[in-house]
């Protein structure tokens, strides 16, 4: 692990963020410090340690596949910044 590997332009693209030049410089500098701190985990021997993704012994939750009205009709589309009749409207894709 090394904080040198942090390519902020590439990461910003993956995260769909368009950073200003000023942000790239400032955030880039901050990440150096943060990643150096994170790198202290290298001192831990985790060779035979199982990863924890969840603290509870969760199992898949199943339910009957029944049709239910959970959300009221007509309440959701109007929340969109732009909509047209019963569709969400976005800029041209192709």
């Amino acid at each position, binding site marked *: *692990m090394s904080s040198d*590997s*942090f390519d*902020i332009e590439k*990461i*910003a693209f*993956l*995260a*769909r*963020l*368009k*950073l*200003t030049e000023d*942000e790239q410089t400032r*955030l880039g500098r*901050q*990440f150096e*410090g*943060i990643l150096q*701190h*994170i790198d*202290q*985990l290298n001192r*831990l021997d*985790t060779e035979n*340690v*199982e*990863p*924890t*993704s*969840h*603290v*509870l012994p*969760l199992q898949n*939750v199943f*339910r009957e596949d029944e049709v239910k009205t959970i*959300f*009221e009709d007509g*309440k*959701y589309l109007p*929340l*969109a*910044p*732009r909509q047209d009749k019963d569709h*969400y409207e*976005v*800029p*041209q*894709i192709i």
Partner: protein
Amino acid sequence: MHQPTITQAKHQLLEKKYSAVELLDAVYKRIDAVDGKVKAYIHLTRDLAHQQAEEADKKLAAGEDAPLLGVPIALKDLICMKDTHTTCASHILENFVSPYDATVVKRLKEAGAVLIGKTNMDEFAMGSSNENSYFHVTKNPWDLNRVPGGSSGGSGAAVAANECMGALGSDTGGSIRQPAAFCGITGLKPTYGRVSRFGLVAFASSFDQIGPMTKTAEDAAILMNVIGGHDPMDSTSANVPLPDFTAALSKDVKGLKVGIPKEYFGKGLDSDVEKAVQEAIKTLESMGMQAVEVSLPHTEYAVATYYILACAEASANLSRYDGVKYGYRSKHADNLMDMYTNTREEGFGEEVKRRILLGTFVLSSGYYDAYYLKGQKARTLIKQDFEEAYKKCDVMAGPIAPVPAFKLGEKLDDPLQMYLSDIFTISANLAGIPAMSIPCGQSKDNLPIGLQLMGKHFDEETLLNVAHRYQHTTDHHLNHPTL
């Protein structure tokens, strides 16, 4: 009239000393008088609250009762309440009106609560000072030049400034407990899975938990009875029995073992905080509890582990803000990709971007094993520390934060220092255990200091029991700021 606790307000409403509408009016009068200075709220829901109070009065007149009938409660602004704004203190959700109630809101309504408004917070609950709100900065009612803590700083300040009887907050890395400590109130982060997260805007889904922020442990128990319990709408909600938390309050604590994690004392701990916490431990001993030293050897790795995992989860959760179905959309976009990137660039604040970027990095191809998987393994070690420690004790006690409330702007330019201030609260979220903050003294500058009590999984009863008995023995929780 605006001074009562939830417990007192309940009695006084039943005794008809005042009506629910009169109580609500008194609370809004208090808000109108002090919130210009404190700025605890983002939105007030005056009309809806008035209807709920009138409804409560009708029920009270008919001799009905419910656990919170007529009691004014505030909600952190990332908990959805139908037909009201839920902004997460973010530009990207500034105009979002929730079409449904969170499960906790549904349960509060069923319990007769009067929901008075939505409190300020760090944007998307990311922060320890409330300075990351898009709208305004909440001030600490004890010293208006200091932070109320975060991210549930608005809820903490509202309770401390008597702008509500109690509030709900959420805690991902200390966001209930640290503002509770900074504002001198009681705050409980329940066991992961104890309270439904349905309708809570997600930050880091394997950590987030809703909990009560109140003036006393007794009030926290009343709120837990209402909001706790299994919910089919949240697949991570635990299907375990919900005890009556108020019934457990008065049990004798004699003979209970309180573990003192040695890693929580030492370098970096403010001397006033250390003195107050040590004094509190002596009080617990005087109540018949037995203090034993325990060790949480991986404490120094908690902040690094947390910021890998919580940011990874945040980067995935916040990918939904794309400007399509709800929330803000940039006006500057000719194509779809520009719409995504401009919307997110303009809609998110800097701390949120920082965490999305960090999370995206640790999950990205080539770095997943070195960071994310390593973090998950470190989480196992931290969890095992607690399992070992609880073989020797029933609860643990220590500080909430290394220092009392810091000055506004003090840590704003140094995110790592801000992250490191969460060192004592983060481990409970990594391990999923319940933990709470109760006032245990004041610093030389008259700032409140919080004692952290940590419990075993699903044993909020013992935590609330110890906290209630402590508040029976001491009067730190009765201190109020002068505004």
